[in-house]
């Protein structure tokens, strides 16, 4: 090893604490890059393979009932490459040991006469065997539901389909790409134990749903050209199928499972770019400070070596190799860390999404790229310090460095204020202002670290707010009985008489198409009674929105899509019945968080479609003893008209579990990330200052200052920088939170950005705690400082 190499090794050992801190920051940045990107790659690869394997559809059409003969006509529509008609029906699952009725979805698989081409939206068998085409009493159960409910091949399953109870034999379990993320209708999160998909033969489905020779769900593939722009094809499909009552036409991009998967990938992509950027920038800045200091400290040595005839190039290489080393070690550690992070995240997604397989692969290219990025940032971080060294002529370099600009700092121009500060604060302020570049780095690091904390707490609180909002303010009914068809007022009386029911309110939902000029939207208008207390439309900020006596109360998001405003009129074309268009006014707008809701007065809506007292759901408030609850559940299980029963408490528990499990782990990790920024940057700055001012601090000790007093001098400067950084980090964190939430916002819902005073307090408190822990470490160094030697030393 050359003699300069030996010097380098010893310099590195001497600065090991500080270098380790920088390496840790680099490693986390690269770890985040590799981890999030690899997870994203894993998910995308698994998704693509799964979609291809199941021949996932490009569009879904839900309709009332269409004869199979119409399928040929639909297949001829320009842009449609292939399609399949099937039967989909809501079912109630009656499990022997479960008191509640569980809802699910019955889906038909192709009959034996449809063989040949690969099936669109095919299933992947996970256990057991496929359905036997010669039998019509067999069912395949979605895997997660079977697992949660302990169902297996050989068991008998009781399903209530269109009011009739039927017994089917389970022959296996299956999954399908259209349900990679299976969220029950109306829910916010998957409920694997409380919602299942049941695949049956076509013959059985036709019989059970009175749909002989008919379909109510069409899934199809588009030609490559149409896939790029599905909208015109969707419109043509809509027109051709309109006579059969189209509830919804959904292109792949808006399909629930795919939409959620895409949002998750978007979130990962954001993390894979912002996190590394933040961490590597901080690492580069800290390294910059470190190298500038090293350069200044070694100026005389460098000058001497130059005088001895060492060329600039050799010295530049010498100092740059510090950066190269930091980049290499940080990059390699980060690669390892990232691989572990990817394994952990991928395992997490295995639980969240139902893929046939989701392996964690090793991406050599990604690791090499990350290593290169780490090297770039680290070398960039060293360049300024290096240039400072090699720029000087040997004569200049051997001169003692000039003291930092001794002019007055800005604050000294305000003498009244300045004199009030007192000597020690004046000194601290002077130091902060005179090392301007370094102070800015410190402030930046504190701001970034704080913003990580703020956005983490904010993310958790925003989701908590959303869940709380939905459950405490909007969905206040304990049970919702959804019926398959419209019923009359008798059903309301029947519901009132159920055991333990205190209050029952009818809801009348009219499925239809809202049309304004060339904009249209398929959805549901929800009719509420004026005195309704169990369904409360609210603005995003919680204000209750009154349902007007006439006209529609419409989500502002939907109004924007339709290009209408308050006072305008839209056409409402009901999907069922005569489908006669009605021109209705928009009399209210709603800033709701979720969905594209449209509300109207119960009686008005009834009259509009020529009904009186028709209802499609009943909301219940109860006060039940356990015995009453059991009797209640037993009765609703037997209701032939029931499509599903929403149990608020159960949904709430499920959602909390989902978010707590998901976000708990994530937020601890993020807090750790924030901590590394603080320790990597702030502690480093403090230690650099300590070394640089060794002699100055030793002098104070000689003058009789106690170690604690010397530490307090440094604390004042640290507080000036960090409090400024924390103050800047608060809005920065808020802004990051809004950005992250925007990632998960789409046409259907938005995540409001919310931070409670508790969240702010935790962020500030943790940031301050990190600062104080750094100070504690600095204080210990001061306590142990050999100040006599420091004064004797001649550098």
């Amino acid at each position, binding site marked *: 090893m050359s003699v300069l190499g030996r*010097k380098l090794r010893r310099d590195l050992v001497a600065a090991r604490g500080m270098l380790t801190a920088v390496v840790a920051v680099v490693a986390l940045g690269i770890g985040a890059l590799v981890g999030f990107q690899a997870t994203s790659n894993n998910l995308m690869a698994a998704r693509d393979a799964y979609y291809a394997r199941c021949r996932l559809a490009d569009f879904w059409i839900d309709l009332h009932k269409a004869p199979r003969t119409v399928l040929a006509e639909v297949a001829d529509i320009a842009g449609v490459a292939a399609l399949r008609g099937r039967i989909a029906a809501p079912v109630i699952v009656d499990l022997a040991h479960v008191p509640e009725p569980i809802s699910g979805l019955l889906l038909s698989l192709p009959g034996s006469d449809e063989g040949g081409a690969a099936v669109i939206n095919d299933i992947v068998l996970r256990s057991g065997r496929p359905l036997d085409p010669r039998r019509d009493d067999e069912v395949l159960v979605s895997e997660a539901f079977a697992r949660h409910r302990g169902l297996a091949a050989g068991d008998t399953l009781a399903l209530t389909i269109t009011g009739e109870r039927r017994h089917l034999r389970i022959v296996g379990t299956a999954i399908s790409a259209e349900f990679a993320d299976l969220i029950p209708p109306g829910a916010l999160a998957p409920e694997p134990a409380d919602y299942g998909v049941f695949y049956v033969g076509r013959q059985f489905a036709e019989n059970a749903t009175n749909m002989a020779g008919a379909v109510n769900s069409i899934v199809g593939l588009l030609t490559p050209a149409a896939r790029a722009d599905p909208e015109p094809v969707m419109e043509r499909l809509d027109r051709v199928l309109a006579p059969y009552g189209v509830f919804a036409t959904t292109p792949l991009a808006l399909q629930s499972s795919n939409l959620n998967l895409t949002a998750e990938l978007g979130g990962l992509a954001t993390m894979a770019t912002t996190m590394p950027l933040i961490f590597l920038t901080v690492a580069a800045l800290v390294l910059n400070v470190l190298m500038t200091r090293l350069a200044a400290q070694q100026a*005389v040595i460098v000058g*001497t070596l130059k*005088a001895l*005839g*060492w060329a600039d190039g050799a010295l530049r290489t010498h100092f740059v190799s510090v950066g190269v080393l930091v980049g290499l070690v940080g990059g390699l550690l980060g690669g390892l860390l990232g691989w572990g992070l990817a394994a952990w995240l991928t395992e997490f997604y295995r639980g969240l999404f139902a893929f046939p397989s989701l392996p964690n692969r090793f991406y050599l290219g990604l690791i090499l790229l990350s290593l290169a990025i780490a090297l770039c940032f680290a070398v960039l971080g060293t360049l300024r310090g290096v240039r400072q060294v090699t720029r000087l002529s*040997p004569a200049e370099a*051997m001169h003692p460095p000039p003291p930092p600009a001794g002019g007055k700092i800005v604050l000294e121009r305000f003498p009244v204020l300045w004199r009030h500060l007192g000597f020690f604060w004046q000194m601290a302020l002077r130091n902060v202002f005179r090392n301007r570049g370094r102070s800015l780095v410190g402030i930046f690091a504190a701001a970034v670290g704080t913003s990580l904390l703020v956005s983490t707490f904010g993310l958790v609180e925003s989701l908590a707010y959303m869940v709380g909002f939905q459950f405490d303010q909007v969905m206040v009914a304990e049970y919702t009985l959804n019926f398959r068809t419209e019923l009359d007022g008798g059903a309301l009386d029947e519901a009132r008489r159920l055991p333990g029911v205190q209050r029952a309110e009818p809801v009348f939902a009219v499925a239809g198409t809202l049309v304004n000029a060339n904009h249209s939207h398929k959805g549901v208008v929800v009719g509420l009674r004026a005195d309704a207390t169990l369904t409360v439309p609210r603005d995003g900020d919680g204000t209750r929105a009154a349902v007007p006596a006439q006209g529609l109360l419409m989500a502002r998001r939907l109004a924007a899509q339709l290009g209408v405003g308050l006072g305008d009129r839209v056409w409402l074309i009901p999907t069922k019945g005569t489908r006669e268009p009605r021109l209705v006014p928009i009399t209210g707008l709603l800033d709701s968080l979720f969905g594209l809701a449209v509300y109207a007065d119960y009686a008005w809506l009834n009259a509009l479609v020529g009904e009186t007292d028709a209802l499609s759901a009943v909301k219940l408030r109860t006060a039940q003893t356990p015995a009453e609850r059991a009797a209640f559940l037993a009765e609703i299980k037997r209701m032939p008209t029931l499509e599903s029963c929403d149990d608020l408490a159960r949904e709430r528990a499920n959602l909390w579990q989902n978010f707590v499990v998901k976000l708990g782990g994530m937020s601890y990790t993020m807090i750790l990330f924030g901590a590394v920024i603080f320790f990597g940057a702030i502690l480093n700055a403090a230690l650099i200052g300590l070394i640089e001012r060794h002699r100055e601090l030793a002098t104070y000790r000689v003058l009789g200052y106690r170690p604690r007093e010397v530490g307090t001098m440094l604390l004042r400067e640290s507080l000036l920088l960090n409090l400024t950084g924390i103050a800047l980090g608060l809005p920065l964190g808020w802004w990051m939170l809004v950005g992250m939430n925007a990632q998960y916002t789409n046409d259907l819902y938005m995540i409001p950005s919310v931070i409670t005073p508790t969240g702010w307090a935790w962020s500030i408190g943790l940031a301050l705690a990190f600062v104080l822990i750094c100070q504690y470490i600095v204080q210990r160094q001061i306590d142990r400082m050999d100040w006599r030697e420091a004064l004797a030393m001649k*550098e």
Partner: protein
Amino acid sequence: MSTTEPAIRCVGIHKTYHTGEVETPVLRGIDLEIMPGEVTVILGASGAGKTTLLNIIGGIDRPTTGEIWCGGENLAGFDDRRLTEHRRRNVGFVFQFYNLVPTLTALENVQTATEIADRPMDPAEALALVDLSDRRDHFPAQLSGGQQQRVAIARALAKRPLVVFCDEPTGALDATTGRHVLDLLLRINEQTGATIVIVTHAAPVAGLAHAVLRLELDGIHASRNAKRLGAEDISW
């Protein structure tokens, strides 16, 4: 008159420092010759411009105007790269504060010179020359000032330079240690024939030299010592 070529010959050296708006003329027309194999002492008061002059004739710095002839070439016309080459090949330096690399041992500090030289001594041999063979693995902080300066001298000699420049080599040392260092320089001059230039503000040191150059406000005054003193004979 001897017919030997001078090792270094300077003609009309001017040096003016520019610090912002302020111009500080330091050297105003210096002519001098350094003869090979001799000990030359440059004397001057503090602030007279001795270090500036030494840096210029040593190839560390460039004059504002003037010529520095060394080996048939004018250093004043050299760019940074050629100056570096010149220092690497031809020149050794000893500084007032030794300027050793604190993280390298005595031997390794000497190696910082031998590693880049064309025909260097064995670094151990250079240390033996300054009587520090037993301290080769000590770090500067473990050596006394005089010992550190001897390491610096070994570092300067080890490349077998044309000229060794010493800027106040005893400035940071007590009188006794200083005399040892000067004695060492004289001995090396006698044993190896190395050309040595010593810059100092201490007039008595001039007694050791073959040639003396007094740097004063009106220029430089050259003289030769008919009879040279030994290091033990002087005090300051």
